[in-house]
């Protein structure tokens, strides 16, 4: 299995009483001038980069970044700014076994041709280590923070992806006469190192139209949920049913899963050490109403009607809007929204999730919520030493090709760095 350390770069210093009553959302609505401190953000960025570099040193297969706007949950307005730093630093420090998992830049709210260029640049700097994430993006990021009409969100994404793929691969000049982008002459400089283009990865939140999109094009899918392996079972089962229906095999490398993880010396110690940060993450950073995630026009009519007709409350279906506030960290650990425990517990739980969901790519968030730098380092080191080597062996006994990972990095597990084993 390929294991990536994913980082959101959250603001770690929201006050204990956040969100105050009446604040509709931590996204868009939390006043910067009341809660934000740019000097603290200097640390957020620099310590987060250090944490990702540490993950590269302890032997992770990938480091992962994403894009969000106007919120304390994640501070990367453009993941490629940080990808460029990591591309250079990992190369310089001899960590060129690590893939750059950009999951990714939001295509609907940025000129796609610019993103094709930026990804090509990252692939060039890193010498062919890029995984090009192509997310549709959250409604609030695209439509509120960037003003894109919700009804156009998905159309823009689809057109943008087609344009990027063609711009990377065309061996002739072409004009692009799209609905949302018109370009008189396309001849991208530079092109990616990887041929015909970097592996792509499509993140999603359990929409069946996204699965079909992936299977039709032989793209892998990353299920981004904060509700753990158990709640993902029925989602990923349906993903694999769709794969079979579309004539695709059940190669686990077609799928990726994201998990929040905290490792401690013992289960009890881990719970004590991470509870505060679990609650900060779920209660403060994920304070995001449904109307923001999917403003009218964002979800297509068929999906909308499916959701409304399923007899379930919208709140129960849309992961982000489960009422998290009454849940304590202990509940969220018990329900396995988060995997928190001793190395043995974490190993066992993550292995069970990977096998049950049939995923070949695991992304773990080891810094989450208010977790300070020193604790994040400890989590990454413990995970790297006690959990990672075990997980990397999963699927190794099967004769499987991972078509969706940079070619030069497919032979694994790469040797771990001395620092981690010392």
């Amino acid at each position, binding site marked *: 299995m390929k294991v990536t350390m994913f980082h959101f770069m959250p603001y770690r210093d929201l006050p204990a009483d956040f969100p105050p009553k009446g604040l509709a959302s931590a996204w868009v609505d939390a006043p910067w001038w009341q809660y934000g401190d740019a000097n603290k953000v200097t640390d957020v960025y620099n310590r987060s980069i250090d944490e990702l570099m540490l993950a590269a040193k302890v032997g992770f297969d990938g480091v992962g970044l994403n894009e969000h706007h106007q919120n304390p949950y994640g501070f990367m307005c453009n993941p490629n700014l940080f990808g460029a730093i990591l591309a250079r630093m990992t190369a310089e420090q001899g960590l060129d076994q690590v893939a750059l998992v950009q999951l990714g830049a939001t295509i609907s709210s940025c000129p796609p041709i610019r993103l094709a260029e930026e990804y090509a640049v990252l692939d060039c700097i890193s010498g062919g280590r890029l995984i090009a994430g192509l997310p549709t993006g959250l409604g609030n990021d695209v439509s509120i923070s960037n*003003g894109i009409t*919700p*009804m156009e969100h998905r159309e823009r994404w689809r057109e943008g992806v087609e344009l990027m793929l063609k711009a990377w691969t065309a061996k002739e000049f072409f004009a692009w006469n799209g609905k949302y982008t018109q370009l008189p002459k396309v001849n991208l400089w530079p092109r990616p190192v990887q041929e015909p283009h970097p592996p792509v990865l499509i993140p999603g939140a359990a929409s069946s139209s996204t699965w079909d999109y992936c299977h039709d094009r032989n793209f892998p899918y990353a299920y981004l949920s904060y509700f753990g392996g158990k709640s993902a079972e029925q989602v990923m089962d349906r993903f694999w049913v769709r794969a079979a229906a579309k004539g695709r095999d059940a190669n686990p490398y077609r799928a990726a899963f994201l998990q929040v993880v905290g490792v401690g010396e013992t289960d009890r110690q881990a719970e004590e050490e991470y509870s505060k940060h679990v609650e900060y993450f779920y209660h403060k950073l994920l304070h995001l109403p449904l109307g923001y995630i999917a403003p*009218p026009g964002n979800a297509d009519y068929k999906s909308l009607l499916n959701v409304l*007709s399923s007899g379930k409350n919208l709140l129960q279906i849309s992961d982000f809007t489960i009422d998290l506030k009454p849940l304590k960290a202990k509940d969220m650990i018990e329900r396995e929204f988060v995997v928190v425990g001793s190395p043995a517990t974490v190993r066992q739980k993550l292995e069970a999730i990977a096998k049950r969901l049939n995923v070949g790519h695991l992304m773990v968030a080891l810094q989450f919520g208010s977790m300070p730098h020193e604790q994040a380092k400890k989590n990454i080191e413990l995970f790297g030493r006690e959990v990672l080597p075990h997980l990397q062996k999963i699927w190794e006994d099967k004769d499987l090709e991972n078509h969706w990972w940079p070619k030069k990095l497919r032979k694994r597990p790469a040797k771990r760095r001395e620092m981690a084993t010392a």
Partner: protein
Amino acid sequence: MISATVKTIPIRHCNFEAKVKTAGNGPPLLYLHAAGGPIWDPFVEGLCEHFTVYAPHHPGTGETAREAIYGVESLWDLLLIYDEILDALDLPSVPVVGTSFGGMIACELAAFRPERVSKMIVLDPIGLWREDAPVAPYMLMPPEQLVATLYKHLDSSPVQAALQMPSDPKQVAVITADLVWALGATGKFVWPIPDKGLKKRLHRVKAPTLIVWGEDDALISSVYAKEFADRIANSRIEIIKDCGHVPQVERLEVLGPLVAKFLNGG
């Protein structure tokens, strides 16, 4: 209840298959619905008593194909569709009543083809923007906040009647999906700020215009009434007291006579 039919009109522009609900007796009148989709309420029924009401469904809403909205790419497309609908209905010049979003479309139509609109009534129209009185972000509101913003007296019986849902959960699901989709399909022409150039075009309106506003409209402040009136030469304002964004529901007893009088020449 006056029996209504729905006409299907194939429109060349955007290959849109238009649906126009039609009912009533008398001279023609065009009725343009609000952002929530076509609603056949007592206000429209009242219009049908004296007029043959033509009520086109905005692309993607009502009886039209939901996906039709994807093909209507701009406000320019939308106006050409209305122009072709009027051609098909053989209405060279017609009085137009528009509510909220429909009010904006009425104004756009009257500015684009001034000779096609003989008279105009707009109820709490969207379409202009003032920094000091921003239009409420209705597309982002949870349902309970949206209805509280729309109406001044949520618990009054006409409002309760308007909000009544059927008991069958399947019907509720369809109604809710249609409502959300209608907000998205109309929102395509006003997102993220409902200021798409109407202020530059309103001076072209020739129709005698009645601008009606609920005094306590919390969605689009009644200060906008003057903004419209300042730009439309032959216009006057009627402010309805103790009323929110939807006078046709909250104060039909006041609105009905005002509208009838204006349409009958006064």
